[in-house]
């Protein structure tokens, strides 16, 4: 006496699925979060004395964005698109000029045998810049312009790092896998050679109200 189960009508299945599909289409966003990651300097401790750090004038490049979004680099007005080249020159000082940063002889260890251009023990010997870029802005500077300047500075350092990585390790710097201990060591080594030395001053008003 087995009664056959009545067949379920599947005709409306498509409608239901469409409804769900449209719901997800409307309520979701596809955006992936991208941006420029930076590190803020910590607030100095209260008991820490405010010591004037003596920095050699040639080691500092002042990048100033004023309240009408004009860019001043090292005391002269500059177009934003020239800033990258200027930064690279500042950090490498190829002609050992007197007015560009001191280049200090440094040894940086890399994983032994990771590159044919390094000695077998993997220690890189060369010059590392002591330069620091001081980025200053006014309270009325537009954020968009400020970020473009940040972007140029980061781009310059990234380019230097990438060139070094390509030359020694035949790989893009961005492709280094930090989960791999050897490549992680390579990355931190390159970071020691080309430091992201961008200092942001304490906020202040540079002329004018607000």
């Amino acid at each position, binding site marked *: 006496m087995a009664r056959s189960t009545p067949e379920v009508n599947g005709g409306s299945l498509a409608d239901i*699925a469409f409804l769900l599909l449209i719901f997800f289409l409307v309520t979701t966003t596809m955006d992936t979060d991208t941006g*420029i990651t930076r*590190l803020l300097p910590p607030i100095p401790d209260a008991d820490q004395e405010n010591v004037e750090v003596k920095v050699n004038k040639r080691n500092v490049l002042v990048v100033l964005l004023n309240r009408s979004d004009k860019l001043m680099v090292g005391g002269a007005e500059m177009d934003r698109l020239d800033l990258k080249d200027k930064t690279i020159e500042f950090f490498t000082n190829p002609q050992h000029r007197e007015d560009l940063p001191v280049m200090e002889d440094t040894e940086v260890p890399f994983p032994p045998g990771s590159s044919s251009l390094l000695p077998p023990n993997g220690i890189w010997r060369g010059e590392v810049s002591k330069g620091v870029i001081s980025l200053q802005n006014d309270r009325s*500077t537009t954020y*968009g312009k400020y970020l473009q300047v940040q972007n140029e500075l980061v781009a310059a350092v990234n380019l230097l790092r990438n060139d070094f990585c390509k030359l020694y390790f035949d790989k893009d710097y961005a492709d280094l896998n930090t989960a791999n201990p050897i490549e992680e060591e390579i990355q931190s080594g390159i970071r020691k050679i080309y430091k992201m030395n961008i200092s942001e001053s304490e906020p202040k008003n540079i002329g004018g109200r*607000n």
Partner: protein
Amino acid sequence: MSKFKRKKGKGLPTINTSSLPDIVFMLLFFFMVATTMRETEVQVKVKVPEATEVKKLEKKSLVSYIYIGRPVAHVAKLYGTEPLIQLNDKLVSEEGIPYESIQDFTLAEREKLPEADKNKMVMSLRIDENITMGKVDDVKQALRHAKALIINYSARKEYREQGRQR
């Protein structure tokens, strides 16, 4: 003479739609997997600037969002049109530099993270490109005081030709 005659084989043959649900389900699953739910309602207008050196934010769970922009129309009725700060989903009403709001916000967000990741918290700053730096400096200053030092200036990827363009 065949026993079974075709019933008037003249009209258009009907299309078999029995696989339509399968196709739609496939699309549905694709969208379910590939998209993320919009968690917070952004009450300020934010058009982030473009930059070439952007990187993807890796771990979403470590990220908290700070929005700065002019309020959208229905919020502007209540708060005026001056730029506002929004922390994840609530607007900041504090005057001056929002030390307290950001301090509380940072503590609450840090509390949510597992012990090992507490010092890896990332603050994503989603700031409209036309906002003046005064507001941004205030937030950065407050973040320094709250010891949330890893920040990410949110930006869209800008594709630039090799060389230079004006």
